[in-house]
C-alpha cells in the first residue's frame, strides 16, 4: 500500500502533460511523469518520494510509436522492454532488454523509465549510445530532437518538466554485427556486475558499458585501445581498463577488484569471439 494520496493525471497529448507539470510546479507542487510505474510505485511505498501528482504518459500517441520511418526506427518512450524485444526490429536492443529485470517486469518497464530511472544501470542506454541514436524531448519550452549523447551523460540531463517522447535509431544499426553480454554475481536475473554491448561500424568495434562504473557510458578512447589490431588481446584489454572514466564501482554484489577481473575477462572473450568471426 502507498501510505499517502496523489492526484493521477492521464493526458492525451504532450502539451497537456507539460501544461499539467507547469501548473503544478507554479504552485510549488511536485509532479512526476509516470510510465511503467515500477520504480515510482516502489519509491512511494517505501517513502523515498512523495509526489503531489503523477502524470501517466502512456496515453500519449507519440510516446507509444514503434515503427520504421524515414530510414530510422522510432521507439516511443512508453514502449515496454517486452514490446521492443517482441518487435525484433533492433537485435542488439532486444538482447539488452531481455536481460533487464525478469520477463514479467519487462512487460511493464518502459524505455523512458529505464533511461530516466534512479537505478544506476540504465542498460537500454548502451545500444542507443552505440547506434548514434537521436532523442526527442518535450517540455514546457517545447520540443527538441538532439543526439542522445548530448543529453545522456551518466544519466538523462533533462530540463525541468521535460519528458522523453521517443528515440530514433538509424537503420544501419539494425543490421550491424553486434554483441551483448551481462555478467551477474549469482542469479541470471540481477543487476549487472558488468554489462557490455558492442556494435560494428566501419569495421571497427564500438563498445558501451554498465555496472563497471557508477553510470553507463560509451568510451571512444577505450574503443581505440580495443581496436588496435597490431596488439595482443591482453595488451588491448589492459590499456582499455586503464582508460575507465572513474574508479571501478563496488557494492555488495561485487568488490571493485572482482568487477575489474570480470570486466577484463569479458572484454578478452569479446575480442576473441570478434576475431574468430563469432560476432
Amino acid at each position, binding site marked *: 500500500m502507498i501510505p499517502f494520496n496523489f*492526484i493521477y*493525471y492521464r493526458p492525451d497529448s504532450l502539451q497537456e502533460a507539460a501544461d499539467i507539470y507547469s501548473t503544478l510546479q507554479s504552485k510549488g507542487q511536485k509532479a512526476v511523469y509516470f510510465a511503467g510505474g*515500477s520504480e515510482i510505485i516502489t519509491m512511494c511505498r517505501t517513502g523515498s518520494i512523495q509526489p503531489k501528482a503523477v502524470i501517466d504518459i502512456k*496515453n500519449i500517441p507519440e510516446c507509444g510509436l514503434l515503427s520504421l520511418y524515414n530510414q530510422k526506427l522510432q521507439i516511443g518512450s512508453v514502449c515496454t522492454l517486452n514490446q521492443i524485444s517482441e518487435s525484433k526490429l533492433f537485435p542488439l536492443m532486444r538482447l539488452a532488454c531481455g536481460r533487464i529485470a525478469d520477463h514479467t517486469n519487462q*512487460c511493464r518497464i518502459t524505455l523512458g523509465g529505464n533511461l530516466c530511472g534512479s537505478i544506476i544501470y540504465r542498460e537500454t542506454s548502451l545500444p542507443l549510445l552505440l547506434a548514434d541514436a537521436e532523442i526527442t524531448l518535450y517540455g514546457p519550452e517545447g520540443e527538441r530532437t538532439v543526439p542522445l549523447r548530448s543529453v545522456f551523460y551518466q544519466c538523462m540531463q533533462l530540463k525541468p518538466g521535460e519528458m522523453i517522447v521517443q528515440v530514433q535509431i538509424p537503420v544501419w544499426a539494425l543490421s550491424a554485427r553486434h554483441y551483448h553480454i551481462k555478467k551477474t554475481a549469482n542469479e541470471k536475473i540481477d543487476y549487472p556486475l558488468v554489462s557490455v554491448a558492442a556494435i560494428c561500424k566501419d569495421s571497427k568495434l564500438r563498445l558501451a558499458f554498465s555496472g563497471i562504473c557508477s553510470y553507463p557510458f560509451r568510451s571512444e578512447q577505450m574503443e581505440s585501445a580495443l581496436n588496435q589490431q597490431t596488439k595482443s588481446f591482453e595488451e588491448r584489454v589492459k590499456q582499455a581498463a586503464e582508460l575507465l572514466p572513474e574508479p571501478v564501482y563496488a557494492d555488495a554484489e561485487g568488490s571493485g577488484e572482482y568487477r575489474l577481473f570480470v570486466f577484463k575477462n569479458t572484454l578478452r572473450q569479446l575480442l576473441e569471439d570478434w576475431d574468430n568471426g563469432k560476432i
Partner: protein
Amino acid sequence: MVKYEGKVVIALQVNGEAHEVAVRPSDLLLDVLREQLGLTAAKPGCLNGDCGACTIMLDGWPVKSCLMLAVEAEGHVVLTVEGLNGTAPIQKAFVDADAFQCGYCTSGFLMVCHALKTQNPLMPKENIIEEWLQSNLCRCTGYQEIRRAVRLMYEST
C-alpha cells in the same frame, strides 16, 4: 484527459465481469483485487517486483500487480486465477505434476504459465519457458515440478 483526485469510482474488467470500485489513485491493483473484489489468489510477497506471487494477466500478458496502480487497469482486461475457473490446462497440469508444496507462489506461477500458453499456443523452446518462469520465485523450491507442469500443459492440449 483523465484526472483522479481523492476517492474515485472506476470501472474495471476483471475475469470477464465489469466491476465498479471506489479507489484512491495511489491504490495498488493487488490491494484492490484482494480487498475490494475479494479476489485473493494474487498474493502479496515482496511488493517490489521480485517474487511474482502477485502476478495477474493484463490484456494477455503477465504483470506484477504490486507494481501497478488500480487506476491504470481501466480500459484493460484483467485476469486472475479465479477467472481460470479451475478449467485451464495449467491447473490440471499443476495437480498432475505435484507442482506445489505450501502453495503461496502457485497463483503467480499459474498466471505466468497461462500467459505463456496464451502468447505461445505451441510449445516454445526450453529457453523461452525458462525465461518466463524466472520471473517467479518458489521458496519451497519446486522448480522441476513446475517445469514438468508446463510441459504437461502443452502435451495435454
